[in-house]
């Protein structure tokens, strides 16, 4: 699906899951956790390739 010409807003997108009720809260939590894991993986990769001062 084309993501549209509209800026949907990341916070508003994840909020939609919460607004969907109890089942949605779990979905929102999983998505939020996946995002944190993704961010950590990116940070770890950057740490590996960046030269360190000695």
């Amino acid at each position, binding site marked *: 699906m084309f993501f549209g010409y*509209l800026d949907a807003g990341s916070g508003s*997108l994840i909020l939609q899951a919460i607004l969907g009720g109890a*089942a949605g809260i779990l979905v929102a939590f999983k998505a939020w956790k996946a995002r944190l894991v993704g961010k950590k993986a990116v940070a770890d990769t950057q740490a590996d390739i960046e030269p360190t001062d000695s």
Partner: protein
Amino acid sequence: MHRADPGSFRDPASHIVFDGDRVVRLLDERGLQGWNALSETSFFARATAEGRLIGAARLDRAPEGAVGALEHPRLRFISYPFEWTFSMLKDAALLQLDLLAEALAEGITIKDATPYNIQFVSGRPMFIDIGSFEAYSDGEPWIGYRQFTRQFLFPLLLRAHVGIAFQPWLRGNPEGPTAAEMRSLLGFWQRLKPSTLLHVSLQARMEERMSGAPIREQLKTAGFGVELILANIRKLRRLVERLEWTGSAEGWIEYESCRHVGRDREAKSEFLREAIEAHKPRRVIDLGANDGHFSEIAAAAGSLTIAVDGDEPVLDAIYRERSQVSIVVSDLTNPSPSQGWAGVERPALAERAQPDLVIAYGLIHHLIYTASIPPSAVLDWLADFGCPVVLEFVSPDDEMVSKLTANKTEAELHPGRSRIEFEEELARRFETTGSRTLGEGTRVLYRLRALAG
């Protein structure tokens, strides 16, 4: 030869052009896919038959540069959300939610959520942007949710919970208030209501924390599904349906109780009917429409009638009575200008109205005495419509003028207010084709024809 609609360009998949009087929607590949998906649903046939969705027919041949083309019926008048009453925006919001829910049930979504996609036809909201529909992919969230809150829900909350008119805000910023702005406007206890806690406070917080973060794929992987969108829509619908604005009845009663209203009403109605019979206008604009009585006469005679007034409660009451009249909330001393992208996206009210007859009953004394517009400037403005005018003159010794000038001195008022001076100014701009003196002689009706050049 096609002429582009200056208000239709944001969606690359679909936009409107005019071919003479015909309204044509040009589609690219993606737009055509959306149309193909929509046109096969029972939802489309049902919603168009009920007048909730504009009709569309595929053209055999698409103009050069387009993959497909549709033709729509031409709307006779366009109004904008900043010209609507509370109940109009509320009904438009409910229509947006209902159409989305019905479309999703058949695998179609609406990719945006703006009231600019809705127009009022015969007094009821109609969704006019066929290009907004496209096939729904499993796991995708509702892209238009944030836009729905900013352009529908927050303006309604602004009026219902904070007591602030949404029209000036939407005219100043058509995107509507942000969640953070709404949070600032709500009082402490209002922020804690379940409805505002989630849609305003939590959305503002999450927008601040997650600005620009990619989340769409994570939502899909986490199991986001259409049932969550539908649950959100059901709750939003309940929330919008319960929003009420209690200002409605007050303005109505106040106007009805004015002494001159009942006294002169029948004579003014008769004078207007004579003018309609003489000019047979296709389009009428009622400036300072008040309770819409004279607009209804013009509409009953078959004219497209635009009722303009700055008094939202009175116009809201007209709308709720399911009037056929086109309603515009606008202060006539500051009417809707041409605005939007390049200053032409949303044409000015006068450009959209294009009347064949102007009704200016019970109006000019408010312009002259309250808004301090010189009488000659009021007549210049009326003459600029370039069509016949039915005008009520109110002399300086009228009871209502006495009230309006109770705290003004003669030096603070413009000259040219007496009947003799006023008629001299009239003669410079109009030919008077009829006149009638009302009641106690302080009010005079004129039927005027603008002089050429």
